[in-house]
């Protein structure tokens, strides 16, 4: 459907990639670790490698969780925008097919958060 308006109602999306000065948005969800209340929203360089993203962005973001030290993200199960995904750690985010406002979901088998409550 589309909006019912008094005139031709058309506006630019507020979050187009060109508004981010060469960077892009990426969301990361680590299921069963609700210490972090929602998926993270991070700003990344499209040409940074996937490995660098894990080291420099993901690991610091989740460091406060007791499971963080044991998490092997490069050996984990990944989804990109809800589809199964096998990242190439040495390729850039862009070459991994990760575009602006994509969402990564990473499941770390054996690490199910705290208190048996996905926390």
């Amino acid at each position, binding site marked *: 459907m589309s909006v019912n308006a*008094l005139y031709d*109602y058309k506006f630019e999306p507020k979050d187009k990639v060109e508004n981010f000065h060469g*960077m892009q948005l990426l*969301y990361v969800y680590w299921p069963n670790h609700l210490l*972090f209340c929602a998926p993270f*929203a991070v700003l990344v360089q499209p040409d940074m490698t996937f490995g660098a993203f894990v080291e420099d962005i993901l690991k610091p973001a989740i460091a406060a969780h007791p499971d963080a030290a044991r998490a092997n993200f490069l050996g984990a199960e990944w989804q990109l*925008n809800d589809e199964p995904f096998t990242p190439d750690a040495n390729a850039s985010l862009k070459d991994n097919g990760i575009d602006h406002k994509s969402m990564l979901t990473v499941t770390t088998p054996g690490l199910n958060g705290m*208190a048996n409550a996905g926390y």
Partner: protein
Amino acid sequence: MAVKNKKLNLKDKYQYLTRDMAWEPSYQKKEDIYPDEQFEGIKITDWSQWEDPFRLTMDAYWKYQAEKEKKLYAIFDAFAQNNGHQNISDARYVNALKLFLSGVSPLEHAAFQGYSKVGRQFSGAGARVACQMQAIDELRHSQTQQHAMSHYNKHFNGLHDAPYMHDRVWFLSVPKSFFDDARTAGPFEFLTAISFSFEYVLTNLLFVPFMSGAAYNGDMATVTFGFSAQSDEARHMTLGLEVIKFILEQHEDNVPIVQRWIDKWFWRGFRLLSLVSMMMDYMLPNKVMSWAEAWEVYYEQNGGALFKDLERYGIRPPKYQDVANDAKHHLSHQLWTTFYQYSQATNFHTWIPKQEEMDWMSEKYPETFDKYYRPRYEYLAKEAAAGRRFYNNTLPQLCQVCQVPTLFTEMGAPTKLSHRQLVHEGERYHFCSEACCDIFKDEPEKYVQAWLPVHQIYQGNCEGGDVETVVQKYYHINIGEDNFEYLGSPDHKHWLSIKGKSSDEKVESAKQDAA
């Protein structure tokens, strides 16, 4: 001939001052005078069917409101002169006022603008008068709330710049965008959104807990505001019901349009009220009732009866009410742990509930609190005691529609986030729920423009790239005074000195309480 009875009776007065102010235009076409009345597709065949349950005239209205104001301000004065803030239950309570003043009072002002606008747009005089009075009520509420709470601003932090913060601070975009959405709709949708879905169906969930909460916690200024607003609220609720019945009775083609608005605005209101859920369960030191109990009484029972009543018009209950009903067991806990971890960017403090508060929650939430949420606080208390009070240093994903972080869980799966996403015209969008995703799909042109605080920070539009600069410069939150943990905060220390306690011993005992 001499007029015998110069004094008009109320009914005549009402007739002269409202209905007789309307006339059939002869120089201009009616649709040119009321250009917004048609485009939503709502068909009105006979405006004279509009009932005015209160039959209030403007002069009676002014007199009545002036009387209430006089009493109200006398009590505010007495409250201030007697240092009423010293008699509240605990200074943690003031944080509920900070949330209210920055989250709700500006909405009263937005409602004033909204009703002023739509009050111009109806060709029926009865609806115009009702909207005009409600517009003035809303302006009055916005002002009196600010006056009721201004005394606290002299003694506590975080209350100094509420309207400014309302336009900027990340979580305040939730209430702000709610009202912006309503105000940018047509006049009939606005009334369905605010008068019906919010004022009639959901407002008790805001005002009853809030005003009873003020009473339970010794805040006489805010309680008195509540009493002063009560008769207005009753009028607003009656308008809400009148609006919906009038629209539905006018034409059967109106039914599917109104149903879609009810589905949308029930859900948007429910998401907005998630802020109230945490206020009720966590921010009131003396608790009134739990969010789950309030939801059962004010939505499941009252709302259930209402939608039963509306069945004869072909209206069914809101599409996602089952999700909302199920969420009553989780909502406040999910919200509070979210604000706890992002307290560095709020104008109020957060804390770990005390032992007896957690026991109260176990009792009120027997199926969920001990299983899912008590362990969170036990962990957070341990961390805080070890000097590692938890803050989440990475910004969260926000829902494109309600703008709340995508923190909510699936119905029946309380450890799984109910995230949704879609691609619209080549752009990706993310949502907290199926319901918000549905709202987007209906009117994507509206929500692609959403001013999402997290994305705005990343675009560099909030005076800085790091959270500290944004919080201080762009939000006007004074770092170390307004934000962070309650224990050990200037507010906490100030409260202990009012109560004649040293801060060290109290922090220690509070830590033990929490652990």
